[in-house]
């Protein structure tokens, strides 16, 4: 019984420590997204504008290459089903991206804005409402944490 009580106390202490540790490791970045156009005709570009903001009190240097690879995009239809990946997404070789390579220097509370053509990643050719959420992985030197965006909606119209 003593051993059980001790184990319980130890386990509880570990739990609260872990919670406290997790809370103290809040990401220094915020990611917000917004649809460039809330309604897009079928077959047109459905673009999501992203904004990564440096929430810390010191300047940070970040690198941005290809938005198709820099961000993870989750698109769901009105039934909650994941929109299928496009052929372009399936063929992406993100380890060998050779184009745009920006080193962005963000002062405290400054932002880097980017744009993701969601329709090039996910098949949203069906008319209807889609919800989009984006995640971005902070660089290793900032803990490598995944920063989640808000959810935004895009309506594909005929």
């Amino acid at each position: 019984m003593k051993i059980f009580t001790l184990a319980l106390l130890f386990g509880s202490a570990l739990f609260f420590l872990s919670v406290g540790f997790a809370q103290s490791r809040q990401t220094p970045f915020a990611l917000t997204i917004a649809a460039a156009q809330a309604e897009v005709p079928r077959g047109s570009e459905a673009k999501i504008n992203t904004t990564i903001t440096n929430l810390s009190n010191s300047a940070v240097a970040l690198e941005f290459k290809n938005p198709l690879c820099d961000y993870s995009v989750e698109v769901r239809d009105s039934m909650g089903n994941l929109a299928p990946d496009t052929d372009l997404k399936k063929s992406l070789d993100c380890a060998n991206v050779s184009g745009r390579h920006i080193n962005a220097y963000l002062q405290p509370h400054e932002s880097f804005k980017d744009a993701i053509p969601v329709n090039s990643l996910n098949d949203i050719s069906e008319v209807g409402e889609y919800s989009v959420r984006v995640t971005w992985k902070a660089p290793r030197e900032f803990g490598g944490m995944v920063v989640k965006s808000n959810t935004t909606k895009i309506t594909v119209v005929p």
Partner: protein
Amino acid sequence: MLVSRCPLRFRRLAPIIVYILAASMFAPNVHAQKRAVGGTKVGRIAPMSPGGLVPGSETLSPTLVPEVQTFIDAWVEYNTSTCVEISAGSWTVTTAPKYGTTATGTVTGTLGNGDCAGVTFTFAAIYYTWTSTNPKVDTDTFAATWTSPDYQEMDTVDITECGGPTIMFNGANVAEKTTSAAVGQEIMLTGQAPNAACVSATASQQWSMPSSTNAVGGYTATASPPNAAVTPLPTDTTSTSYGPFYWISPATYTMTYQYTLTNGETSPVSTAKFKVGGPKEVKVYTCGGSVPPTGCTNTTALGTVVITPGPALGFGDATYSNTGIQFTASATAPPGDFSYVQEITNDVITETPSDGSAVQTCYPLEVPTPGVFPGLDTSYPYSTGATTTDNPGTGTLTNVDKKVSRAFSAQMYLLWTPTAAADCTGGASCTIPVPLGSVSWRFNAAAKLTNSALDTWTVTSGKGSAKAFVASNSYPTWTSWVEYGGMSCH
């Protein structure tokens, strides 16, 4: 007999009653005839085209433009049996107008009542000219009497002046004013005659068109599908509204609007002046290598070609000690934001396999066809803000190859978008980016495998250069998207 049954008094009055009834049938409501004579009649002139009042109108309420003599009315007395003209008559102004002048004369034409078809008569005509420049009045009235040997017609004429039209922009009349605007700001103009009577009498209207060298109808740019094009200026210059369009160069511009009444008279031209602000003294510095993170302060040499971790062949390594190229824009500008758009004008990687097989020519993946340039680089826009960088690097180098080289060139466009007005409800169409100019730059790089076992590579040559910023209001356009999601080799 019916007559015999009538009272004597009625019999005496009967011709007079018949005369009155007959006269009332022919006389217009607002006109009084002095007397009618058997075989004679008066008639108004038939419609004169173009212009002129429509005869038969019993209420003389013409709408007319200022400083133009406008026909009001014309009568003639003629013999109904022979169609011989008895008299053109003459006019006397009984109540003079306050804001204009009258004039009389003769005019030839046919009868408006259909009598004597094909016979031309000389009518006495009266005209009115609005002469007042008082902007607070737009109505006038006068009375005149036409007299012939046997008849008299009295006209009361209510004039509505159709002066300079209004030009509405963002809910305000900007006609004859100078209004501030910004390049890239949506311009939608609506013209209208100054009062309801003139609006209903408007037959057509005419807008001036902005010059296509400093205005566009819009700009659409997408990566997927790849398409960027300028929307031409609206060509409909004859509707109530003109637009939307956007000026793309700061200057003072004028737009004019004019309408034409159903009588053919054209209104004065209203002019709206727009003082269009935008970025001035635009500069773009390029620098590389060790650069200030906050941006170039002058144009200097670019970064160096290096082997980056991977290993990969990079133009710069995306650090502030060896940035490939950094662009920093500055200008004197109203509230707004810079953005960059880059077009790839050439990008080819040549790989020489270690096993001696054929040299591979590789192009970055591109929609629709790899290797067809120019194409949009990666995303639209490339980035936002006054400063951006590029450090293009290859994919991972492996010992499959013994030599790799890359030839890269691009054109970086600087654009500027004004801050949309808080009350603009047009969403994305409230503003568009306007081009300010571009920088052409390039680099060549080559490396060789020096240790196959360790996959160690060494740069054998490489250099980058940038031309000076060239100011221009030409938009970047494309139908290809270099999406850089991999390579296509053959």
